[in-house]
């Protein structure tokens, strides 16, 4: 799946990250946040706020509920949503990387053909991964869809998309990092174009199908109405024919004259009906064209925007087996790739 569903826990992470990033004091007890917002945020959220992610608890204790669309979270989201930035960061290792690499090797159990364990060589090094995040927004009559994606790329690895570990990692700033922005932007653009292609195509297909369905419905509807309008004239014709036949079959001159007069009157009525039907058909045609024009005006728009770009320095391990197989392992990102 392109965009992984984020749990309520991650909304919680957003909230807590916001509080910590802005050095806002809070206490968390029994799922209730007791937050003292400083003045700059207090004006927006209130200075003392008790809130929770638990909807039932919020209702029971009359607390502010934090959830999708809630005021505080919407505000926080809007503060950072469009923020563009460049950065150079390193991941603070949480544990001994070599132990993690060893665990991975145990897990893989690479063997020779005869089943005996293959020996290997592990080399630790640091690599600078390029990072970019991008938002795709598609709008059509069927709705508005937003997709967000991140990528990590480097000439030694296959690009990694939407690495969830990034949301949980602690970073630290690195200094004097050189960045070739135009090159990074160009590469990110190419990667995301391919990455989003399926999504865009799927949406385009849905939109085209919707438009085709609408056009078909309208065309059939108006064709049917035109047919029904024609039927009025047809019916008048049948009536004339009926009267003519009745006149021909008359046994007396009197009846014949009377039927002929009826035929004449029916002919006169038909002329009126023809005129009405002609006008009605013109109107229907005009209506149909207007309806089709309206459908054609239903456009699908797609726009992507690069939001963040930078370098993330990570600890990596190259694992070289005597069988010839070679892997690159980045423990902090849980990335393992065969080279």
């Amino acid at each position, binding site marked *: 799946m392109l965009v992984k569903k984020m749990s309520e826990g991650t909304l919680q992470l957003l909230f807590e990250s916001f509080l910590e990033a802005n050095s806002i004091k809070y206490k968390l007890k029994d799922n209730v946040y007791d937050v003292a917002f400083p003045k700059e945020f207090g004006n927006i959220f209130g200075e003392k706020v008790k809130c929770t992610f638990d909807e039932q608890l919020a209702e029971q204790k009359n607390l502010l509920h934090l959830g999708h669309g809630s005021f505080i979270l919407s505000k926080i989201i809007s503060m950072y949503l469009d923020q563009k930035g460049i950065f150079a960061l390193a991941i603070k290792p949480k544990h001994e990387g070599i132990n993690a690499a060893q665990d991975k090797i145990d897990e893989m159990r690479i063997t020779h053909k005869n089943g005996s364990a293959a020996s290997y060589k592990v080399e630790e090094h640091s690599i600078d991964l390029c990072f970019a995040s991008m938002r795709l927004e598609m*709008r059509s009559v069927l709705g508005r869809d*937003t997709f967000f994606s991140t990528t990590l790329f480097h000439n030694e690895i296959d690009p990694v998309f939407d690495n969830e570990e990034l949301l949980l990692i602690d970073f630290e*700033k690195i200094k004097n990092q050189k960045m070739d922005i135009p090159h990074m932007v160009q590469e990110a653009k190419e990667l995301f174009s391919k990455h989003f292609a399926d999504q865009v195509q799927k949406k385009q297909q849905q939109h085209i199908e919707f438009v085709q369905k609408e056009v078909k419905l*309208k065309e059939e*509807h108006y064709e049917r109405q035109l047919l029904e309008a024609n039927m009025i004239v047809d019916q008048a014709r049948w009536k004339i024919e009926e009267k003519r036949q009745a006149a021909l079959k008359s046994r007396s001159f009197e009846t014949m004259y009377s039927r002929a007069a009826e035929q004449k009157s029916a002919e006169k009525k038909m002329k009126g009906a023809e005129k009405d039907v002609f006008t009605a058909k013109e109107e229907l045609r005009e209506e149909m064209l*207007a309806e089709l024009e309206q459908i054609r005006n239903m456009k699908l*728009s797609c*726009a*992507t925007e*690069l939001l963040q770009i930078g370098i993330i320095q990570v600890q990596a391990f190259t694992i070289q087996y005597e069988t010839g197989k070679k892997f690159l392992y980045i423990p902090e990102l849980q990335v393992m790739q065969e080279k």
Partner: protein
Amino acid sequence: MDFFTNEDVFLRLLKENTLAAPAELKLSLLSNKASTLENIKDLLAEEVYKNTIQLLPHQKKSALKVLNEFTHRALLADEVGLGKTIEAGMIIKEYLVRKMVKKVLILTPASLTLQWQEELRSKFKEDFFVATKPEDWDQYELIIASIDTAKTERNSKIICSLHWDLLVVDEAHKLKNKQSLNYKFVKKISKERFLMLTATPLQNNIYELWNLIDLLHPGFLGTSKQFQEQFVKDKLGLDIAHGEELQKKLSRIMIRNLRRNTNIKFVDRRVNTVLLDYHEQQLKFYQDVLSFIKKQYVALAQEAKKTEEADEETISTAELKQLASDYRRKGLLGFALIMLTRQISSSFRTGVKALERYKEGLKDEAQLREIDSLILCGKQFTEDQKLDAIIKLIKKYKTKVIIFTTFLESQKNILVELALNNISAVSFNGIMNLEEKEDAIAQFKGDKQVFVCTDAGSEGRNLQFAHILINYDLPWNPMRVEQRIGRVHRIGQTDDVEIINLAFNHTIEAYILSRLYEKIDLFRTAVGEMDAVLSELKTGKSFEVSVFESVIESKDAQGLQKNLDNISKQLETAKKENEKVKEFDEKIFSTMHVGEKNE
């Protein structure tokens, strides 16, 4: 696909050496992830209006259903009083917040444009512009317009040349006739999304429903012939066939919530008329003013007739222009006379001020002498029995009270009297700005006991935290009375509503009360129904004018009562017609469920 790489932004940041802190990256990632999670299960805009609207479960479900399931066309057909406008407002707001629409046009009857504007502003914090001129349609993105103004040739040309992201048509039952100009005009408007609102999708036969749906989504119910063959039992279109199938189809495009399915508790209304007596001199003054007004009106009518009969060929263009300007002035004077009659009925102080203003337009010496003597006489009455009654009532109820008056002058007098009696009060009227209005409501919700309000300021405001309403004077239009009641007798009201009407014996107001409003049971009619009743009246003139003409044409009190009885008969017939429509609607929709049921 538009590709924004923001390369220049990144290069600038690099040049300035402005590198983001780790927390900024994390918050950007989390915020963007969170924003993609927003789906229409949650109304993003709810935060904006949840404190100003007491949202009901059926309203939220209906809004979500339209947003999620109806893609681009919907008919909101809730029964009267269930908050269709709120549902529409929620849908509009959600579309705007999600940036799914930009250019929105709301078409309503002329009488509702300002009410819509006020509701969208006060409840949904959206500023819609009430458009009237050809240049407005392109200039503004969010527009409300009277359908009659919009369909005029000079406006409709421009409206139809533009593409609207969302079109909303209120009181859509007025489009049930395929041949009408309104129907043809709405059909021609280029719209991506289309929302229609009506409480009465059916009035006379089932074909009207087909007409409405075919306007909303041509072809959705097939052609009229196909519809007739499939779903209509009889030629007159009074009975449906294959109800279940029709229900299934309609539930993909229409929502109709019924009162009985919503579990909303509607409180009762108690009406109490306090009839006061003028003393002899007061009554004489009142009658003298009325006879002055009658004389003025007759003179005006005669002059107007002369203007109409003027032979265009024998007079010059300059004279014609003069005549036209006179005609307009007389029209205004006619209106001024209606207002004067109502002002003198509201209170003598208000009436005397109005006489002074009216005097400014008079030139005839005899008329000036007469009006001067009336003004002089009116000024000697310092006693106001209505104000005394109000003070007694407020002291009796000892709770929050809303006092309605039509006139600013009367409002001032009431406020002064309340202050003299140490009763805390706050005023509310149409000349206050939005902030002042919000503040006034907040004060009334807080510690102020009395809310003195004019009709012009009351539209769209919810005051259901009070339940006692005093009509200091009485509007001459039942719609206005209903709007006043609608401020308190609405969803969320927990106490029975008490309405107290103040009027003087032997006055027009007393007759209107006894001969018109009580006969049609106006004070107990469900809020929202009066519009449907009045639309059945086909008099071609406004209700106020009909009442005023009854006053003018009557020689004495008996004559006036007789004239009012005639209007009352027409109203009763219209009410019966409306009952028939309701019965027919009930018959058809009782077999179908196309609304939201509450668990």
